[in-house]
């Protein structure tokens, strides 16, 4: 387990440096890559292979940057998707602030960020479908920060 975690951590660091390296030269960049910190993070908790994984990844306001704390989860998803090859929908969502069509675009950016991460991990791009619902399908219907935080998300649907 320890070697596995270490290996994942290393892989992660390599991917991150790749992402950051890309951002300086690519015009296809978005804020996700420019503001991403280079984290030399080791995955602390060993991943239980059989346990169901959390399928929601959360984001900050008006951001499509993957948060460092979500990466362990996405690495675990990547592992499973690589072995299963299952077709997966990545559904992007936003909170209600900001206009609806802007939020649709923002939700797509978030889902794209998850897709790009999974593809860099070796998941087949053709097995991943991105759809954004913007603010149209909130998980929480309140107009407060805790509701907003639950709604800024990407859901992985196998």
């Amino acid at each position, binding site marked *: 387990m320890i070697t596995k975690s270490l290996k994942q951590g290393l892989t992660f660091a390599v991917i991150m440096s790749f992402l950051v390296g890309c951002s300086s030269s690519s*015009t*296809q*960049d*978005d804020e996700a890559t420019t503001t991403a910190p280079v984290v030399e993070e080791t995955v602390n908790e060993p991943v239980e292979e059989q346990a169901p994984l959390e399928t929601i990844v959360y984001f900050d306001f*008006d951001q499509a940057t993957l948060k460092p704390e979500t990466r362990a989860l996405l690495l675990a998803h990547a592992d499973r998707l690589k072995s299963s090859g299952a077709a997966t929908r990545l559904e992007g969502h936003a909170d*209600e*602030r*900001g*206009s*609806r*069509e*802007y939020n*649709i*675009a*923002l939700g*797509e*950016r978030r889902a794209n960020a998850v897709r790009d991460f999974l593809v860099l991990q070796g998941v087949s791009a053709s097995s991943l479908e*991105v*759809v*954004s*619902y*913007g603010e*149209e*399908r*909130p998980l929480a*219907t309140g*107009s407060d920060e805790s509701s907003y935080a639950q709604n800024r998300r990407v859901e992985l649907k196998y």
Partner: protein
Amino acid sequence: MKRYLLFFVLMLSGMAQAQLTIQISRGADNPTRIAVVPMATQGLVLSEDISEIISKDLEFTGQFAAIPRTDMLSFPRNEAEVHYRDWNVLKAEYLLIGSVEQRAGRYYASYQLFDVLGQRKVLPKLSVDGTEAQLRDLAHHISDKVYETITGIRGIFSTKLIYVEAFQQRGTTDKYRLMLSDVDGARSRLLLESREPIMSPMWSPDGRRVAYVSFESDRPAVYIQEIATGKREQLTNFKGLNGAPAWSPDGQRLALVLSKDGNPEIYTLNIITRQLSRMTNHFGIDTEPAWTTDGTGIIFTSNRGGKPQIYQVNVATLQVERVTFDGEQNTRGRVSPDGKSLVMVHQRGGTYHLAAQDLKTGNLRILTEADLDESPTIAPNGAMLMYATRFGGKGILAAVSLDARTRVRLPSKQGDVREPAWSPFFN
């Protein structure tokens, strides 16, 4: 500042859909006082109270206050029965009288408008007719005439609204409805129902079709639907976003957002030839296109400068200019019919207001004060705009005059109401 609150319940028409009812939350400082005398009907019982509809129409603009029937000293049926002193006492500035007759199944409404202060007739006896189902139309027609005679601005009471109703409750299947109604919310009619989101409805300039985004195929796609027949057509099905359709002033093209090439970009699509032209090319988010009134430019929202602001692209040269500079964010721009103002969702200090920017001077005016106001749509006469807001924990529609002096709410009895689209004039 005078504030008053008015409630009334619209008479339910045939099908009991979710009705919107008007509440005036803020009127003009000095509204014009008008007496709308109950129509003389010679014992005929009508399914609609025409005078009441006219009163409410005029009050809806915030520019008028209708004198209550119970205060009236007389109910003149014709010019000979008009005694100006009865109306002077009530401080009425204008007086509308009329009558309705039925002949061979048709209803004939005739009406006259008097200037009480000037003691003169300002509208000679006019007549309008229709079927029983058109009684509301007759009332709206008379309201349009009265409004235009007094203000010099064309009335919008015969125009329509399209909006989205959403029903999202825990434990139940989501339901989305595209609805059509009179501009006062009455006579709502279902255009489309789906379990998947419906978004961004937009009228064609001829008022016969609506373009919208539907997720019914599990992905967003742009559709066009004929309003009279319900006949619909899927216009786009590109990979990624298919959103925010906006009809060009000549009705031949739609501006829309596609992300098929990686980023959300503005395109135009010729509805006949299906020719697609790319208008923007930037790695940021470009969305919410709206045409300028002359059709030479497209206003859009972009976060290319960091935060979302409004830009304009020249359709011929593809040159892009930034339009808004005030505030943290400005989104969802719409140009007024006279081409002079840009209405938008303006964010400063964490709250979202509607604001109007003078396109010549750049001066910005805040129009609304509630948080989370969104989706402004401008009346075809340019005097009011409708928008979506939240009230009592629900999504509702509200309207504000473009001078920000008057506001009305149209709360819904059920569901969240959002994304109003104000029709053009129909003739």
